[in-house]
């Protein structure tokens, strides 16, 4: 398994939604289809708090590969949740404008 135990239902989303910079996570939000975003959102939302609580038990610097993948999924969810919960039907138009504000730095990327 590529994720910590208890998060098996997220396995189908690892290939698409694990990205190693905030800029790439934002691009996933923008360029994945509405169906793909919704499927990831639906799977991740009930597991967000359990995932953070699980990951908080281990210092970030010593996260295992599996824990790091789960961390990166929660970060992609931070972007996708804005698409689903805030923008809704306006997400496509918003994505066009959002691309004009590239992210150059985020603490998670350092």
């Amino acid at each position, binding site marked *: 398994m590529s994720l910590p135990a208890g998060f098996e239902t997220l396995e189908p989303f690892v290939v698409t939604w694990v990205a190693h910079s*905030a800029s790439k*996570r*934002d691009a996933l939000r923008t360029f994945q289809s509405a169906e793909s975003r919704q499927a990831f959102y639906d799977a991740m*939302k009930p597991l*967000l*708090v359990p*995932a*953070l609580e699980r*990951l*908080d038990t281990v*210092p*970030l610097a010593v996260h295992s590969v599996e824990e790091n993948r789960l*961390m990166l999924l*929660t*970060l992609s*969810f*931070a*972007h996708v*949740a*804005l698409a689903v*919960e*805030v*923008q*809704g039907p*306006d997400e496509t138009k*918003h994505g066009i*404008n*959002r691309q*004009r*504000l*590239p*992210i*150059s*730095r*985020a*603490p*998670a990327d*350092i």
Partner: protein
Amino acid sequence: MQIGNQAFTAVQGEDVAFLGTRPIPAKPYYDPDWFEMEREAVFRRSWMHIGHVCELPESGSFIRRELEVLNASLLIVRGKDGQLRAFHNVCTHRGTQLVEEAQGKRPTFSCPYHMWTFGGDGALLSAPDFESFGLDKKDCALKQVALDVCAGMIFVHLGNNPPPLREWLGDLADQMETLPVARATTFSEYSYNIAANWKLTYDNFQENYHLRFIHPRSGRSACGPDNPFGYPKEYAFHDPHRTQTIWTNPDPQPTETIATAFARLAPRAMAEGLMEAPHGRKYFALFPSFFMLGTPLQNFVHVVYPISATQSRGVIRLYWVGEDANASERFGREAVMGVAREVHSEDIAVIEAGQRGLSSGALEHIHFQTQEALCRHLFNMVEAAVNAYRAEQTA
């Protein structure tokens, strides 16, 4: 004017009457000749924010910053003595720009053209065949620029005889020192290029009149039945700067994930004493083109850098105290950056639409209402600076 029920009263027209009520000339928002005067009258005579001390943690740390409005490339360096200094990024031999990298760490800076080499204090250390110039090395140091720090933020001044930074900032300096930015060790950053005048761009971010129309989804929490426009509680004027105190919506109804994100940032803020922020609801608008919102969980700085009369560049940073402590904080910071960017993304297109309209020359004047008092104040300050500059030039 009363807005809604008794829970919120907007700032009254008489409170800002001293700013005047005249229509504002449209030309300064697109005219290249006016912009040329602003370069000298406004930007060469103002302290400008260009970075944060956390970017220069060690001796030899440097950042390069471009200030297009003054055609300047600046090199900011922490020297061996721990002091921060700013220099023109220009070799004193024949003017070649010294550094291409945006940031890094070096003990010395060598010009790629003829290898003149400078120390972190700007002194010329060595130059091949230097004796052939008949010069003294002490006369060939990098050209220094005034630099000072307030609340961890680095400001530079490219004019003659600048006032001390804290004198320029007045009582806002001590207020900003209480905010997270003063203790920040890291930050998130995003930026934008916009086909719009710097004042038109900046004005968008110092009035809430547009919130309900341009941000019907992302700005929902900023408005409520008591205050449908999300107007601020208070405006204050500290010439040439100004502030507004944002209204606290008693029922903001954030989405579930946004609420989770802010909640994950609260433990650190409480532990660091950041939640007891006397100026945490204040929007600082420093002349000419700096904003900062001081909220404990989303302390962001937004600077609009002019490029031409109708081109600007915006840089937004969210400052954080301490490295990510755990997964929850890492998630919270990523999400809260997204929340701010969500709003800013929605502004760019409408600002550019305004610029196209103004640049057409169709209007002689534009209009500001009471709740756009900060926009009026900015124009008044800019106009006064330009008029003073003109008078000096003709004297």
